[in-house]
């Protein structure tokens, strides 16, 4: 790196353009990462926060709560499995109209029984075990909803007071509202609920036993993470984000590769000179690759820091973004590695340069 470091220091202007492009790609990648995290949070943070390991759905429902209806009869085999906790869970999307004349709000209504492991001690346990009411995601409190406000759940004729707030998160880009399973059933089915609910929440240390229970209960079990795909729009959003970020990585690799190739062509005589001085191809490659790696890493880190600042500034606004150090670091590392990998296209060209070009002699 003797030559590379000095060349970089004294001819840094030559690397400004490629550094700028890589930094911009890094900014975009980091912001998109923040957006992806935000969309994940918006889509499944509520489900992710629930203390369950698996969810059992009606077969064929593909982890979509609205396509799944189960009964108490199907719950029974689940409750008989040693070392496994099982709880009915009702999930539906409702529009709640304020009785005080405020704006109506969309809610993901989660119904859980008061003895459920899902209703951990706190606001949710207090409400589902007491008078009918709603425990809303805390973000709604920030939007002006207050304890005691009453909301009519559209289409059901059921009106419920806001009993409290909790860090429930959201599901399907809608804030979660916890209520008791009975209230959920009344909202969903009225009097004729026949003990129905959407899915069975399972907490187990022995996932191997679940297939047999599925067969006995007539259910289809997914892991919690697999169930994320059932959140409206989640799969498409993640696929879109992955595609865009993939394109960014490919663009970065192409740009760096093209730059390094052009640089190699421009430096043909210099590389020939180094080889004529006795430098091995490996020495020349290390020098060139090291130089480019420094540019790519510095540009990527700069871009990642700038992108992080943008995501931080956007947080709490209309755009759903979330900062995750792990995501930023992973994204930056992948981008840097991809960028440097792009330069490998010039390796053969460097290896083929003959030392005789230093004398202007072609072989």
């Amino acid at each position, binding site marked *: 790196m003797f030559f590379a470091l*000095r060349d970089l220091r004294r001819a840094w202007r030559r690397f400004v353009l490629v550094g700028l492009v890589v930094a911009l790609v890094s900014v975009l990648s980091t912001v998109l990462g923040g957006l992806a995290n935000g969309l994940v949070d918006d889509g499944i943070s509520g489900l992710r926060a629930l203390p369950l390991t698996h969810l059992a759905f009606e077969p064929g429902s593909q982890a979509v709560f609205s396509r799944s209806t189960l009964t108490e009869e199907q719950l029974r085999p689940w409750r008989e499995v040693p070392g496994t906790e099982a709880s009915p869970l009702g999930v539906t999307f409702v529009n709640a109209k304020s009785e005080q004349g405020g704006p109506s709000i969309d809610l993901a209504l989660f119904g859980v029984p008061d003895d459920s492991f899902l209703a951990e001690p706190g606001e949710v346990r207090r409400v589902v075990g007491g008078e009918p009411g709603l425990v809303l995601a805390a973000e709604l409190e920030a939007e002006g909803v207050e304890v005691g406000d009453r909301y009519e759940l559209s289409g059901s004729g059921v009106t419920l007071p806001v009993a409290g707030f909790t860090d429930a998160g959201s599901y399907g880009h809608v804030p979660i509202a916890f209520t008791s399973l009975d209230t959920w059933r009344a909202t969903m089915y009225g009097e004729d609920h026949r003990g129905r609910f959407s899915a069975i929440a399972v907490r187990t240390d022995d996932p191997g036993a679940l297939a047999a229970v599925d067969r006995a209960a007539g259910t289809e079990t997914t892991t919690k993470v697999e169930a994320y795909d059932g959140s409206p729009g989640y799969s498409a959003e993640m696929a879109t984000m992955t595609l865009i970020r993939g394109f960014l990585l490919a663009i970065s690799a192409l740009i760096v590769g093209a730059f390094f190739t052009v640089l190699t062509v421009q430096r043909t005589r210099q590389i020939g*000179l180094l080889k004529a001085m006795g430098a091995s191809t490996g020495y020349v490659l290390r020098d060139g690759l090291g130089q480019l790696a420094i540019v790519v890493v510095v540009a990527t880190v700069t871009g990642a820091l700038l992108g992080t600042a943008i995501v931080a500034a956007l947080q709490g606004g209309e755009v759903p973004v979330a900062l995750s150090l792990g995501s930023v670091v992973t994204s930056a590392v992948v981008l840097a590695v991809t960028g440097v990998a792009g330069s490998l296209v010039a390796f053969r060209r460097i290896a083929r340069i003959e030392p005789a070009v230093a004398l202007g002699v072609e072989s």
Partner: protein
Amino acid sequence: MGDAVDHTPPLRLEGVSISVPDGDGRRVLLDAVDLQVETGEVVAITGASGSGKSTLLAVAGLLRRADAGEVHLAGTPTATLDERRRTRLRRRHVAIVYQSANLLPTLTAVEQLQLVAHIGGRRGPGPRREAERLLAELDMGHRRDALPAHLSGGERQRVGIARALMARPSVLLADEPTASLDPEMAAQVAALLAAEARRHELATIIVTHDAAPLGHADRRLHLRAGELRAGAVELAG
């Protein structure tokens, strides 16, 4: 009996031939050329443009392979060596002075020399001191931190000579070292190059278009139609 003396010449070319594509056929640049250069000997080779002088240097310095024949460098036959071994041999025994110095534009004078040591695996403060000493010996000590763009043609060539000496070679090859200099400077550089070659006991070949180096050579050869012949044609300068 006295100590055995090693009489292996640093450079010996045996029946070296090279031809290059030329239209539909091939043009012979070197035709079974034999050449031996002894330790401390300065050989000047003249020849017309395109006669193959630089190609001869490239073959002698293991920068390219001959179509036929053998190059013995420091007693080692090189024709069948792989590229890695040829590179190592070149690094240990060969240094080149180029027409327009061929310095790397982003390295200072002293760094041009340090790079040679770095490529040769010599690290630490030693090479820096050696580089400064060599530059001082060539009256370039005061310009050691200057970039090539800030050096005159003569200064660049002096740095080029110092860089070649930094490699501690046994064979020195110079490709038109005075061609880009004015006559006065050309005479100075030619004298310096020959003096340093003798002082360091280097087997030296200078190919030239220019008359300046001829007066400093121990032997003059002329390359024509692929053959090396004794004597040099009359050159301007």
